[in-house]
C-alpha cells in the first residue's frame, strides 16, 4: 500500500510536470505553437488545427463547415470546440483540452503497462517479463517525448485519436470489451484508420475477459463486439448528420482519406507518388495502397496470435509509415507503445541504427522542407527523400521489434537456442 501511495504521488508529480512544461511552452514561446501548427510534419489536411478553426468559424456562422474544401475532420469536433471560449481571445481553454487529452493518454498507457500484458498475455508468458518498465516510466516516456509535445503544442486533432486508441487498448487489457469497443469506435470516427485495429483488439479483449462474465464462443464474442462498434459508429454518424444537416461530411472526411484529393506534402509516402501518378491509374493505385495498409492486419494477427498487444503495437507502427496522411503524432503513438516491450529490447539488433536514422531524419526533414519551400534551392525530391529516410528508420524499428517479439516466442519453444546467433540456411 505504501508503495502504491508513493507510486501515485510520483504519477501526480509526473502529470504536473507535463502540464507545467506544456503551459510554459504555450505562454513563454507563443510563436512556437503557431509555427508548429503550420508544420507539415505535424498538421496534415485531416488533423490540422488551422483547418479546424476555419471549420469552426463556418460552423459558428451557420455555414456548412465543409464548404470551401478546407476542413476535412469529423463534424463532432466542432460542437466540442464551440464549448470553449474563442481561441483568439482566450486560448487557455483550448490548451487545457489538448493537455487533458495528453494526460488521459498517459494514464491509459500507465494502465496498459502496469497490467503486464506485454510480458505475459493469456496464451504466452515471456521468460524475460521481469525486466520491464513500470507504468510511470512508460507514461513519462510518452509525456516527455518531443514528438508528443510537438503534437500537443501544434494542436493537431490526432491527439484525440491517440487518446481514444490508447483508451481502447487500456479498456481491453482491463477486461472491459464494451468500453474498449466504444473507445475504438470513437477513434475510427475521428480518423477512420483505427477501424483496422479491430481484429487484434477483439483478440485482446477475448483473451482478457473477466472469467465471471466471459463469452466462451469466439464467434459469438466477435459478432457481439462488431455489433457494438457498428452501433456506436452509426450513432455517431447519425449525430453528425443531425448536426451538419447532410451526409456531405462522409465524403469530406473519410472520402478525402480514401481518395487523397489533398496532396499537401507530409511525412508519408503517398503524396509524392500520387502527384506523379497517371490519372487513369490513380484509382487503382489508391486501392493498392489501401489494401497494402490493411493486408498486414490478418497476417500479423494470425502469426502473433498469442500476443495481441504486440500486434496492435506493430500495426500502429505500420500505420505511422503507410497511412495516407501520417504525421509525427502517429509516430509518437507507436513510440509510446514500444517501451512496453522493454523486455525484448536486448533481442533487437539494430537499435543504434534505428535511433540514428530517426534522429537524422528529424533534424534534416525540416531543413530540407525549408530548402524546398522557402529558400527555393531544393525541390520536392529533397523533402521526399528525407521522408523516405524517416520511413526507412521507422520500418527498420517495426521489423526489428517484430523480430524481437518472434524470437522471444521462439526461445520458449527452443530453450537450448537462447543466446545463439541466428543464421540463414
Amino acid at each position, binding site marked *: 500500500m505504501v508503495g502504491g501511495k508513493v507510486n501515485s504521488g510520483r504519477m501526480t508529480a509526473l502529470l504536473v510536470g507535463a502540464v507545467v512544461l506544456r503551459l510554459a511552452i504555450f505562454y513563454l514561446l507563443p510563436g512556437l505553437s503557431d509555427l508548429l501548427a503550420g508544420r507539415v510534419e505535424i498538421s496534415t489536411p485531416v488533423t490540422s488545427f488551422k483547418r479546424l478553426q476555419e471549420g469552426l468559424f463556418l460552423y459558428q456562422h451557420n455555414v456548412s463547415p465543409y464548404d470551401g474544401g478546407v476542413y476535412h475532420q469529423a463534424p463532432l469536433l466542432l460542437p466540442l470546440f464551440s464549448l470553449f471560449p474563442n481561441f483568439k481571445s482566450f486560448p487557455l481553454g483550448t490548451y487545457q483540452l489538448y493537455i487533458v487529452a495528453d494526460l488521459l493518454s498517459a494514464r491509459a498507457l500507465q494502465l496498459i503497462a502496469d497490467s503486464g500484458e506485454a510480458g505475459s498475455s493469456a496464451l504466452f508468458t515471456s521468460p524475460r517479463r521481469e525486466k520491464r518498465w513500470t507504468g510511470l516510466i512508460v507514461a513519462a516516456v510518452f509525456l516527455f517525448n518531443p514528438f508528443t509535445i510537438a503534437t500537443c503544442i501544434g494542436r493537431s486533432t490526432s491527439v484525440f485519436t491517440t487518446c481514444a486508441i490508447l483508451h481502447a487498448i487500456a479498456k481491453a487489457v482491463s477486461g472491459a470489451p464494451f468500453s474498449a469497443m466504444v473507445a475504438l469506435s470513437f477513434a475510427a470516427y475521428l480518423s477512420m484508420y483505427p477501424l483496422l485495429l479491430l481484429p487484434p483488439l477483439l483478440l485482446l479483449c477475448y483473451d482478457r475477459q473477466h472469467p465471471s462474465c466471459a463469452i466462451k464462443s469466439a464467434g459469438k464474442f466477435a459478432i457481439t463486439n462488431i455489433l457494438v462498434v457498428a452501433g456506436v459508429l452509426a450513432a455517431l454518424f447519425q449525430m453528425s448528420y443531425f448536426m451538419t444537416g447532410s451526409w456531405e461530411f462522409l465524403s469530406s472526411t473519410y472520402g478525402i482519406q480514401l481518395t487523397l484529393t489533398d496532396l499537401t506534402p507530409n511525412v508519408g509516402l503517398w503524396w509524392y507518388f500520387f502527384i506523379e501518378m497517371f490519372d*487513369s*491509374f490513380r484509382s487503382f493505385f489508391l486501392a493498392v495502397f489501401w*489494401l497494402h495498409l490493411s493486408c498486414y492486419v490478418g497476417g500479423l494477427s494470425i502469426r502473433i496470435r498469442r500476443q495481441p498487444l504486440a500486434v496492435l503495437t506493430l500495426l500502429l507502427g505500420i500505420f505511422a509509415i503507410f497511412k495516407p496522411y501520417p504525421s509525427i503524432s502517429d509516430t509518437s503513438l507507436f513510440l509510446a507503445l514500444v517501451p512496453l516491450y522493454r523486455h525484448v529490447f536486448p533481442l533487437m539488433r539494430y537499435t543504434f541504427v534505428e535511433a540514428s536514422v530517426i534522429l537524422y531524419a528529424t533534424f534534416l526533414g525540416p531543413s530540407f522542407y525549408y530548402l524546398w519551400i522557402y529558400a527555393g534551392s531544393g525541390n520536392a525530391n529533397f523533402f521526399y527523400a528525407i521522408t523516405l529516410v524517416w520511413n526507412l528508420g521507422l520500418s527498420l524499428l517495426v521489423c526489428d521489434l517484430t523480430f524481437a517479439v*518472434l524470437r522471444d516466442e521462439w526461445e520458449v519453444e527452443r530453450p537450448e*537456442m537462447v543466446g545463439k546467433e541466428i543464421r*540463414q540456411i
Partner: protein
Amino acid sequence: MTSSTIISEPLTANRDLNSNSNASLTPVPGSRKEPPPEKASDIRRRSFIILSFWLIVLFLGLPIWWKTTTIYRANLPLQEMLDWADGKACRPVFPLRIAIEANSLHEQEAHNLLRLTQHALDDLNDFSGHHLRLQLSPPSTEKKQDSSHDAALTIRLVPGESSTSTLDPYAPVLNITYPPNSIPSPTSSSSSLATYVASQLRSTFAEEQAIISYLLSANFIPSEHRPQGLAPEAADSLAKRTTRSLKYAPTYHLTFSLFTSGPLPSSWDIEAAIDEYMKPVLDLLSPIHNFTIDTQVQLYATPGVQNQVLSKEDLSSFINAAEWPLSPSIGGAPTINFVVFVGDQTIMAPPQAPEGSDVEAPTFQSFLIPQWGTVYLVSLPHDVPHVSVETLKQPLLTFTSHLLSLTGAPQSGSLPLRLSTLARIRSADLLLRASSTLGSLARLALALPSIAIPSSVADGVSKTMSHLRLACETLGGSEGLAHARIAEAEAERAFFEKSMVGQLYFPDEHKIAVYLPLLGPVAVPLVIGLLNEIKAWRKRRRERAEKGAQKKAE
C-alpha cells in the same frame, strides 16, 4: 557446433524448406546438427498467414484492378460515321425555290413561261446538287409576303421596252423587263424571254454554284456527286478566296482600333459610327454569326513601315505587331481587327492589281489582310482632336464590305442575295466539316484500340448525326444552318474530349512501367511463399502416402 534457423518474417512467412526436407533425413554423424521438425500447428499457422494475404489479393485486389483499369469504350456507330465522312450518308442538294411574280401576265401565259424557263434552266445546269426550282407566286399582293419568304429569289416580270434585268438592292428580287412581244405563245417550244430569264438566273447564281461545288470537291465527296466542269483557274481563285476568309466560328470578335501617329486625334465617335454604318449588316449576319465588339485608341503609334508612300510589299509589314496592342483571339472567338490609322501615309496604286493577290488594295486608302482584318489610312489636319462620325463613314463602309468578304460571302450580287448565299455556303461548309470530324473520330477509334471512349463522346456523336441528318434534309433553309451549327459544335466537342486526348497514346509496354516498380516487389514474396507452400504440401502428401504403403506392406 552450428545451429540454424530462420524466424519467419510476417510479410513473407516462408520458412526455408530445407529445414523441413533435411529433418526427415537421418543425421549423419559429424555433419552439422539439423533443426527439429516443425510442429504441425506451425505449419498450419503458416498456411493461414499465406492464405490471408492471398485472400486479400484475390478477392479485393483483382476485382478492384479489373474495375479501375478496364478502359471504357462506348459503342460508336463507326460505319455510319465513316459513311458521313465519305459523303455516302448525305447528298448535299440545295433546292432553291425561285418565285416568279408576273402580275401582268395571264395565268396560262405565266405557266407556259415557267415551264419553258425551267426547261431552259435544266438544260443549262450541269450540277445536280444545286437545283433552281421555279414556281409561280400567286398574283394577290396579300400573300406575296409569305410565299416570297422562303423563296431564295423572286423574279418580278414587268413589261417594258426591252429585255433588261436589275437586282433589287434591298430585297432578294430580280427585276426583269420584257418587250411585250416576247411572251411565248402557248404552243411554242422555245421562247427568247424564257432563255433570257434562265441565263440571268444562272449568272446570278453562278458564283454560289462555283463555291459550293468547290467546297464539295475539296472534301471527300465521291466523284459521281462531284460537279464536273469547274475550271482549274476558277477553282484556283476560289481557293484563294477561301484562304482569305476566316474559318467559320459561331462568334467573331470585332476590334476597332484608332492608331494615330501623333498626339491627336485622341477620341473618336466610333460607337455612333458603328451603329449607323455597320450595325445593319451585323444584324443581317446575326443568324449566321454573333459578334462582340470592342474599341481602343492608341496614340503615338509607329507603323512597321515608315515610307511616305506604301508599295504593295510594304503593306504586309505595315502592322507593327510588336508594339500595337492588337491582341490575338481572346477566349473562344477569333478576332477580326479593323484599324483606322491617322497619319500622312498613302498607298501607291498598284500598276495592275492581280486578282486574289495576298494583300489587295481595293481602294488606295485601305487594304485587307487575309484572315486578320482591314487597315484604313486617314490623313487629317494635325490639330483635329476628335474624329467625327462623318470622317468615319468611309472607313466603316469599307470595313463592312471587307467584313463580308472576310466572313466568306460571295462578291457578286445584291446584299440580301449575298447574305442568303453566305448562309447556304456556311451550312454546306459546316455540314462537310462536321462529317469529316466524325470520320476522323471513327478512324481514331479504329486505329487506337486502347483509347478510352467516354459515354459523353458517344452522346456527342449521336447528337451530331441526328443534327446532320436534319441539316441534310433542310439544306438551303435557315433551319439547315442552325442544325449544321449544332452538329459541328457537337462533333468538335466529341473529338476534343479531354479524357480521351490525355490517353491518346498509351501502349502496353508503358503498363509494365506503371505496374512493375511497385507491384513487382510486392508480388515476389507473395508468389514465392505460395509456391513453397504448395511444394511442401505436395511433399507431405507424398510422404503420407509412402507411410501408408509401408504400413500396408507390413
